[in-house]
């Protein structure tokens, strides 16, 4: 049996060297034109399968990652990953499933104003980024997720978000204002005063 080809070794080395996922085009750029990068990736994945390090498809690219079952053994002595508050987690899910989404939309879906330390923590983690402004009065900023978000949660793309197809089919990802908007400002506060 002959050893692995030069191109295969090169792609293996490129992926192994990088901490971040590399996209198919980025890999193709490094090898001779016409080489079937996809086939090589499949062969590499096959070769690593079952070992302590695996080739995974993540954030629109490929990366070597330690096998998931070794997590507990590898975790020892490392800094624990960021803990998310409930509000941060919900805001992150809303951004990921509805992107691009405005702050007001996040607040409508949750039915409560976004407190401090929610968006900035997600921004600091590198999981969200601004993505254009909505072309409506006030031109509010829109938020979307980043490749680091996909990488952190081991997702190949947004299509891999848990249950996203079902949610789409159920119409739950459509843009519809929350009920609080159905109340007219003055009416609501008058009503509150009356009852209060």
């Amino acid at each position: 049996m002959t050893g692995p080809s030069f191109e295969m070794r090169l792609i293996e080395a490129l992926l192994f060297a990088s901490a971040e996922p590399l996209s198919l085009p980025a890999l193709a750029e490094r090898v001779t034109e016409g080489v079937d990068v996809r086939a090589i990736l499949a062969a590499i994945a096959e070769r690593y399968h079952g070992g302590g390090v695996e080739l995974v498809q993540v954030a629109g690219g490929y990366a070597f990652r330690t096998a998931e079952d070794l997590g507990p053994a590898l975790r020892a002595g490392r800094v624990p990953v960021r803990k998310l508050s409930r509000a941060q987690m919900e805001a992150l899910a809303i951004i990921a499933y509805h992107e691009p989404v405005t702050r007001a939309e996040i607040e409508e879906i949750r039915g409560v104003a976004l407190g401090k330390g929610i968006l900035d923590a997600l921004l600091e983690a590198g999981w969200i980024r601004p993505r254009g402004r909505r072309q409506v009065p006030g031109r509010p900023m829109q938020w979307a997720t980043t490749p680091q978000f996909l990488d952190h949660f081991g997702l190949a793309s947004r299509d891999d978000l848990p249950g996203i197809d079902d949610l789409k089919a159920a119409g739950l990802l459509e843009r519809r204002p929350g009920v609080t908007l159905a109340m007219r400002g003055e009416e609501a506060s008058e009503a509150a005063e009356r009852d209060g």
Partner: protein
Amino acid sequence: MADDQQWEVNQAVDDRLVLQLDSFEGPIDLLLTLAREQKVDLARIRIVPLVEQYLAFIQQARRMRLELAADYLVMAAWLAYLKSRLLLPDPQPEAEPSATELADHLAFQLRRLEAMQRAGAALLERPRLGRDRFPRGAEERFEPTAGEVTYDVTLYDLLRAYGQLRSRGEPARLTIAATRLYAVEDALERLRERIGAVPEWTDLARFLPTAISDAMVARSALASHFAACLELARDGFIDVRQIQAFGAIELRTRRQEPLP
């Protein structure tokens, strides 16, 4: 009685909920928690019983004198309105969204929030980088040209730098505006000048300056003049009386001694 038992169960649920008040992420979240107690498919949620539960919850939270954020009360008011419209025939069927539409919309929002809460939990259960899977620790970087530099600077760094710069660049200036209120010293001086001989009981109000347009300053003038006339009474120059509570405050010059 079955109803009583039902009531007790609900009561226990409500007590537990009230104690958890801090853990709700707003009124919709609270409604969703109550809806889950119905143990039915959220798509077939019954809005009126849910509204009643919410209103009962708010009532109880108030009975226990818990601090309720305004949005809980606004929601309570809106739900009470929705309930009345659901129970009564619609007076102007075409003027606004119908009660059924509003109720459907609320049900939609509950389902949507529930979906997002589940999605968030599902995300957290995924293998996470740095906890379950680890990347290459000793990165080797390759660049097309030797000597190229990469920068470890994120968008967050950039935005935070600008944010800090702007909060630093705009020092919070605290300006204390000169007070325009009527000083007691001025009132005292004014009263001394005008009170030479007032033999009959006279309303204090008649001694007040009249050229003040600002209501706040006018009230401070009244307060200052009242304080001033107490001072003059203590020194024995005038007598002060108020015949009934909230009645006019009257004063007259003491006859025995002339003012200095």
